[in-house]
């Protein structure tokens, strides 16, 4: 059972996706159920990963390895540690609501829609479980194709502009990463990620390699100032596309920092950490203000995502300042813990927020805040969910949104009071843009005749939001299991990144 589990999680959705594609729009009823069965089966199969995970070691588990391209010494090498596992679970979990949410809403080429998401699921699991850098790169790039299609086919009126912008940005970043990977392959003679992490590199080499990774991951997560593709992509993407984009794809950037940039180029990271921290804090403060004035709900949530991702990059890069400032490593792990929890939590909350917007968009076909008002009068159940997720988005204790931000703020205080000061402004800004949105959309008297016709959630929508709400609350009330899974891997990572590679 253990062996092949990760492969199953990668290939099952892809095979399921091909099957859905083969069934086609003419047999859409069956195709839908196949899609749902595949998504549920993938999620259920990912649970043994968690159950069987040994939380006492930082070593990779569920490892599979076989030769792939012998000419390049690249192998099909899979495995997860405490950093990858939560993201794999997040991926398999989030795909289910995406499939259900698209159930009858998608009218154009529905079979292809479901197929694209299933195939993407497999590829994303591949990204998080690849232990061979070339394999990682393969999944990383392949995953762009279904997302490109999702925005390009089912997107809004400016979808062509948005897809191209999205592609341009991410491709440009990735190309630098490929160059760095090839350079290191030439040094190490292997694409094995662990080997690359252990590869001794001089400072200049590290510097350029770090910048190459930075280009790829900063775009993906995204960081200021390479974030402008995200609001456009979100606005044009269909609901499911936005959900996957926000919930999972952004996390690849954070994962990349933790898996590649930090352990492979620790000395360069130490040199450049102030830059990364500064950009992260800009994301929290500057983007917070930008989010405040958005008139389009999806754009607002997209900007909110960027601000929340600022906490991820901030948490990842605190270790160096903490080590020099306090002379000990206590707290460095907390920053990374916080970053990880923030990624998982944002996966759930942003998914829920985009689904909420989707629920409204499906009814009134507008994303403009001004097109709504007093929605709760007609949709009380929906209003309750929306308020819950908005509270989670503003970091309310008891919801998952609090955990990561709290840990990162505490850790950043250890690095520098002013980091914590600026990071903590999210308490005000996050609440301001999220709850102002709620005030204008959900509360108040019925805004117009269209709002007056709204129908409350149907069973499917209720189920999807309820599942996400349960996740948000569970993670907020009892995050210990998640932290426990991560602990050895995070400690190992902290040791890696504070150990100089320089001779």
């Amino acid at each position, binding site marked *: 059972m253990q062996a092949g589990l990760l492969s199953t999680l990668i290939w099952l959705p892809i095979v399921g996706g091909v099957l859905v594609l083969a069934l086609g729009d003419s047999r859409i009823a069956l195709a839908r159920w196949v899609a749902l069965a595949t998504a549920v089966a993938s999620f259920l199969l990912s649970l043994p990963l968690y159950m069987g995970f040994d939380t006492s070691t930082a070593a990779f588990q569920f490892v599979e390895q076989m030769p792939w391209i012998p000419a390049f010494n690249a192998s099909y090498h899979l495995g997860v540690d405490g950093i990858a596992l939560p993201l794999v679970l997040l991926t398999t979990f989030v795909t289910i609501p995406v499939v259900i949410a698209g159930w009858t809403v998608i009218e154009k080429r529905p079979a292809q829609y479901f197929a694209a998401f299933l195939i993407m699921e497999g590829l994303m699991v591949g990204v998080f479980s690849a232990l061979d850098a070339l394999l990682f790169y393969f999944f990383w790039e392949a995953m762009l*194709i279904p997302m490109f*299609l999702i925005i390009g086919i089912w997107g809004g009126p400016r979808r062509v502009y948005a897809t191209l912008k999205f592609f341009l940005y991410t491709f440009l970043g990735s190309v630098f990463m490929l160059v760095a990977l090839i350079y290191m392959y030439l040094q190490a003679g292997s694409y094995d990620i662990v080997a690359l992490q252990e590869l001794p590199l001089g400072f200049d080499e590290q510097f350029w390699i770090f910048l190459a990774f930075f280009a790829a991951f900063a775009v993906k997560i995204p960081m200021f100032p390479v974030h402008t593709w995200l609001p456009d992509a979100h606005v044009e993407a269909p609901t499911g596309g936005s959900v996957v984009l926000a919930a999972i794809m952004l996390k690849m950037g954070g994962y990349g920092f933790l898996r590649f940039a930090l352990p492979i180029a620790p000395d360069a990271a130490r040199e450049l950490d102030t830059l990364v921290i500064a950009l992260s804090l800009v994301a929290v403060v500057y983007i917070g203000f930008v989010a405040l004035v958005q008139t389009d709900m999806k754009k607002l949530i997209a900007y909110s995502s960027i601000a929340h991702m600022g906490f991820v990059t901030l948490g990842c890069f605190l270790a160096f300042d903490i080590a020099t400032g306090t002379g000990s490593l206590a707290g460095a792990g907390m920053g990374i813990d916080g970053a990880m929890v923030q990624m998982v939590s944002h996966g759930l909350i942003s998914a829920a927020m985009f689904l909420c917007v989707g629920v409204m968009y499906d009814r009134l076909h507008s994303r403009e805040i001004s097109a709504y008002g007093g929605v709760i009068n007609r949709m009380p159940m929906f209003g309750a969910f929306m308020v819950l997720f908005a509270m989670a988005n503003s970091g309310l204790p008891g919801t998952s949104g609090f955990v990561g931000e709290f840990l990162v703020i505490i850790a950043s205080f250890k690095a520098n009071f002013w980091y914590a000061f600026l990071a903590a*402004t999210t308490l005000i800004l996050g609440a301001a843009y999220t709850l102002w949105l709620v*005030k204008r959309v959900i509360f108040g008297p019925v805004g117009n005749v269209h709002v007056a016709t709204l129908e409350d959630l149907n069973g499917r929508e209720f189920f999807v939001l309820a599942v996400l709400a349960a996740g948000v609350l569970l993670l907020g009330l009892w995050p210990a299991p998640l932290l426990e899974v991560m602990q050895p891997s*995070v400690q190992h990572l902290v040791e890696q990144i504070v150990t100089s590679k320089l001779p």
Partner: protein
Amino acid sequence: MSMNPSVLLTIALLPLAAAIVAGLFGKWIGRTAAHVVTIAAVGAAFVLSARVAWQLISGEVQVFNDTVYTWLVSDGVRMEVGFLIDELSVLMMCVVTFVSFCVHVYTIGYMHEDPGYQRFFAYISLFTFAMLMLVMSNNFMQLFFGWEAVGVVSYLLIGFWYTKPSAIFANLKAFLVNRVGDFGFVLGIAAVVYYTGSLDYRDAFAAAPQLAQTGYALTSSLEVSAITLICICLFIGAMGKSAQVPLHVWLPDSMEGPTPISALIHAATMVTAGIFMVARFSPLFEHSEAALSFVLVVGGTTALFMGFLGIVNNDIKRVVAYSTLSQLGYMTVALGASAYGAAIFHLMTHAFFKALLFLAAGSVIIGMHHEQDMRKMGGLGKLMPITAVTCWIGALALIGTPFLSGFYSKDFIIEAVHESTRWGATYAYWCVLLGVFVTAFYTFRMVFMTFHGKPRWHDADPHGEDGHGHGDHDHHGHGGGTPHESPWVVTLPLVLLAIPSLAIGYLTVEPVLFGGYFGQAIQVLEVNDVLAELAGHFHDPASFALSAVGHPPLWLALSGVVAAWYLYLKNPAMSDRLAAFFAPLRRVLDNKYYFDWVNENVFAAGSRALGRLFWKAGDQALIDGALVNGSANLVGSLAGAVRRVQTGYLYSYAFWMMIGLAGLLAWFLLLS
């Protein structure tokens, strides 16, 4: 013997369970079941709290301090949910559950026509749970949990009537202003973890003396004492929740919520969380003179200047709200003078008489068919006798009438700050002393305008014939019908609250303030212990009350009442002349010192302007326009050309590309 943790859990979780039942299943179980289940749960929580309190005070059980469950462990720092049940927490638990119980009962009457009946009960039960978690906590994180949770319920309740624009403006404002306080609170917590590596009160308290010797460099040239940094950050949190100047602006607006919650949340319990917090952290604050001076000045300012605003307001609820602000200022002054016991004592007596005043105001509002303007009231005393009598009791307690509860708690605050030699104490002393006159004045202005004098509720009839006397036969003044006394579910809580308002001060002042009631729960350094100094002059509550004739506060209060009587009953024309004479001053008061104006026009508008600037100039013009456009346009046109060639085939092509890639990968795998 030690306390039974499952009893403690039951106390906290009963209201939560009831809230879930009433909130999620309210539609199915119906209105009666919703209030039965929540009232039963809160009532049981009160009984159990009282029992625990009795066991603790009688020495039957020890102070409880233990973990319930581990929330998470990160990097060796354990974050836990746990209870610290000592003399301070049991007092708070009893006050919270008792007032909450009264408010639950009252709500049956107040909200009986409201379609959101079950939802309301669910919220107030949830609030009780959150408040209990706050006061029972043994660590900073859970305190913050409860802190935010009560804030959310307050947000939901202020905006309970969500179609009312003023209500949803007020709840957003309340949440955001509180978040400004929480911003400081979180930094304070982070500072505690930085120095102690723990979130436990115990560890932080143990480290306090040493932190007083430690410096923290905020910038290369500015170094502050670590304990001062921690205490001021934490106190900023308290300023938000307990509505101290300048973070007080949300409390008057919170009156948009239904009256029961104004009594429960915005008078008796939630707003006192900040007072409780500072008292709980007395072992920390004691080591920072600077922080305590800051507390004194903020408290004194709030006590006096918010009282002035009560004088000019005509909304009965808002007058009580400004009174609450002012009384919170008194408590804060007591904290700043190291008289934590006096602050908590005033918190307790205030909880009873202020809840009483709010509920009485609510009763008047029901009687007046949802009219809140005191200018349209008058002469209600005869029509609403129970409300009027209980309101008089509350008012007398508030202004510090000897023997009544407010007398003891307020007088000792004034005495304590008089004894204090801390920087800022003189200022605070004059503020609280003058505040006595102001309190008596606005309180009895309200009482006289509402219950006495000529009835003015005929004036506001639909025919617009105001300013003239009407015949007594015209009783269709406002909303139809003569004002009437409220039903028993409304008046019973008034009576229940009137009893402690009368007697609790007399009965408990000696043990609570001078009998070492708080034990180790409150720690005061010997040099700061002003209450110990006062203990020398105190013999028994009766003789202390009699000795009041020799002290200024009694005479100030009396002159306040007389002034209110003269200006609002005897010679109302005089009050108009005074208002005209002090017109510029009046304008400042009417505009509430322009705090709202500044918040609205500088902070809110400024943030929006900044956001637009960043968005338009930064994101759109600079990043997208200058950096991305060129390349994007280039690629865009290229891609456009390619796309034309491929039209109709692109999608299937891409799918085949994916399948091909997957197949290629599989092929490599099988081959090797």
